[in-house]
């Protein structure tokens, strides 16, 4: 007599990077039922927005997600600006678009690394995370932060792009494009990757639509849907780019869609740099926003982001509601898990790219007298000294020469 086995994965589990509880019911090695428990990370952001003015709420909204922070703030702002009847300067729209696409670049590279890690392909993880640093360095150069950029403000953006920045972005784009062509080639021709991911986490076109999947998950099921085309915002109506789809309906398709989207993002960034107009970067905004309701949509790296804002005529919003893309994908994920093997669970969960919290790294902006700055050499010296005191000498281990990529 067979007995079904119930395995709880999470809320605290070594292979999960965020608290969520997946209760998996197994028959042998196959998953027959998957129940998702979320809400461990509910921070009451919507309530806290109701007691702060529009500027303060912007900074809270930016912290909904560590990786797609620009998506959330732009989505929120396009709603507020519409209610106020303010059109942002064209140059500001270009800068917002560039940041949006840089964010998509680093988010997709991050995901590719996580996916590689989940299937035991850690070389890919190391490669893509190394390349992601190039994008993060550009973001840090442009706005001072690697994540939570703080570039957006009501009526425009806070910092302008300088000519030397544009050269740096172009160089970064060329490098990422070269690297990404290698990943595209890898995704489309590597036999091991195809064997591991084909047929895993199946989600048919009908099911994807039925369960309301969004973003690369939906597009990998063969549905040509992208908010940048469906409900264009900023300057997307004029930008030529392709909406990438793939109809294998499995995790393999989600890899292909994401790597090809990286190339599209590079195309969009180049278009923006080539056609960037001169002019102001910020328009004047009223402090009090006229009463009204608005829904704004934005294509975040993980899919469609929807914000609802209700204004009551004061400087404090009446209601702000956020639907992050991962929230829309939970349901299709529960469906994908059914019928697959337990060993495929980690990659299927990772395949929707659930939002992991990304921590900020401190960077030294001004090395004023008295501030202490530790570099790699000093850390290594400290490490050698530390182990020598314990009776172990590691100083003879040679380090590889520093690689400049």
């Amino acid at each position, binding site marked *: 007599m067979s007995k079904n086995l119930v395995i709880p994965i999470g809320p605290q589990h070594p292979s999960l990077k965020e608290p969520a509880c997946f209760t998996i019911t197994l028959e042998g090695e196959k998953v027959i039922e998957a*129940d998702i*428990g*979320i*809400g461990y990370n*509910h921070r*009451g952001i*919507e*309530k*806290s927005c109701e*007691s702060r003015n529009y500027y303060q709420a912007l900074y809270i909204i930016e912290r909904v997600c560590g990786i797609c922070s620009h998506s959330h703030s732009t989505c929120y702002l396009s709603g507020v600006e519409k209610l106020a009847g303010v059109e942002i300067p064209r140059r500001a729209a270009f800068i917002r678009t560039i940041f949006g696409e840089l964010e998509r670049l680093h988010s997709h590279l991050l995901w590719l690394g996580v996916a590689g890690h989940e299937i035991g392909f850690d070389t890919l993880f190391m490669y893509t995370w190394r390349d992601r640093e190039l994008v993060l360095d550009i973001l840090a150069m442009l706005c001072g932060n690697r994540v939570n950029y703080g570039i957006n403000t009501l009526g425009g953006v806070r910092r302008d792009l300088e000519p030397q920045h544009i050269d740096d972005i172009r160089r970064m784009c060329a490098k990422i494009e070269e690297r990404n062509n290698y990943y595209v080639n890898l995704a489309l021709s590597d036999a091991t990757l195809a064997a591991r991911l084909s047929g895993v986490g199946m989600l048919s076109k009908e099911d994807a*639509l*039925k*369960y*309301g999947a969004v973003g690369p998950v939906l597009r990998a099921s063969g549905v040509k849907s992208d908010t940048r085309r*469906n*409900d264009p915002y900023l300057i997307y109506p004029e930008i030529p780019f392709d909406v990438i789809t793939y109809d294998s309906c499995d995790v393999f398709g989600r890899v292909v869609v994401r790597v090809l989207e990286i190339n599209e993002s590079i195309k969009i960034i180049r278009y923006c740099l080539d056609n960037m107009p001169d002019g102001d970067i910020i328009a004047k905004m009223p402090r009090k926003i006229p009463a009204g*309701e*608005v*829904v704004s949509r934005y294509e975040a790296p993980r899919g*469609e982001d*929807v914000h*609802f804002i*209700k204004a009551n005529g004061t400087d404090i919003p009446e*209601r702000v*509601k956020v*639907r992050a893309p991962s*929230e*829309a994908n*939970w*349901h*299709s994920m529960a469906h994908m898990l059914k019928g697959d093997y337990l060993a495929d669970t980690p990659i299927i969960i990772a395949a929707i790219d659930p939002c992991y919290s990304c921590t900020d790294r401190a960077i030294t902006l001004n090395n004023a007298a008295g501030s202490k700055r530790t570099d790699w050499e000093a850390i290594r010296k400290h490490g050698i000294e530390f182990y020598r005191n314990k009776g172990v000498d590691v100083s003879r281990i040679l380090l590889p020469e520093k690689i400049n990529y």
Partner: protein
Amino acid sequence: MLDFHTLKNSIIERFPNLSDEYFREDGTRLWVKAVLPQEFITLFDFVVKELRFDNFHMTVGLDSGDYFEIIYLLSNAENQMLNLRQRTVSRDDTFAASVYPYFENALFHERELIDLFGIDVQGLPAGHRYPLPDKWPDDNYPLRKDWKTEFFDKKTLTYDHEAAAEAERLRLEEEARKKAAREAAIAAAKAKKAQQEKEAQANE
């Protein structure tokens, strides 16, 4: 692509009590005013099945003072958005119909309405609550406008109703005092103006 005028007319044809003023157009979005649960579910069925607005985005709960409202954001294949609304009878009678039979992905959204607004959404399958913790006290609905974070003790998970009532009383008193002061100032200004006019007339 349907134009909103035809769309509006086809809805009004089926639901004659929804007059033209129930609708508001805003670019590619059409907003419909709130209706009560019984009528809402037939309207929802019509919009989803016959008008083919079969893409569900999210629900938004609203505390409208005397009652609660729920907005349902739907879109069709042509990317037009139709935003329907359901309202509860009152603040105490919070019954609302579920759209789970139409969209399974509405599950978490509707559970959120139950937890955060205390709306009695009927028709959801059994399961754990979302998003509040299991030990969250009853009758505490954080997104209601009369629930203030400062009166909730995060350690003991208790809401200080007395302090909240006292603060509300003080707020009303302050408001009344300000209103009275404002009215007094207006009356004084009027009296002064009348006096000046009188003096001007006397001088003439």
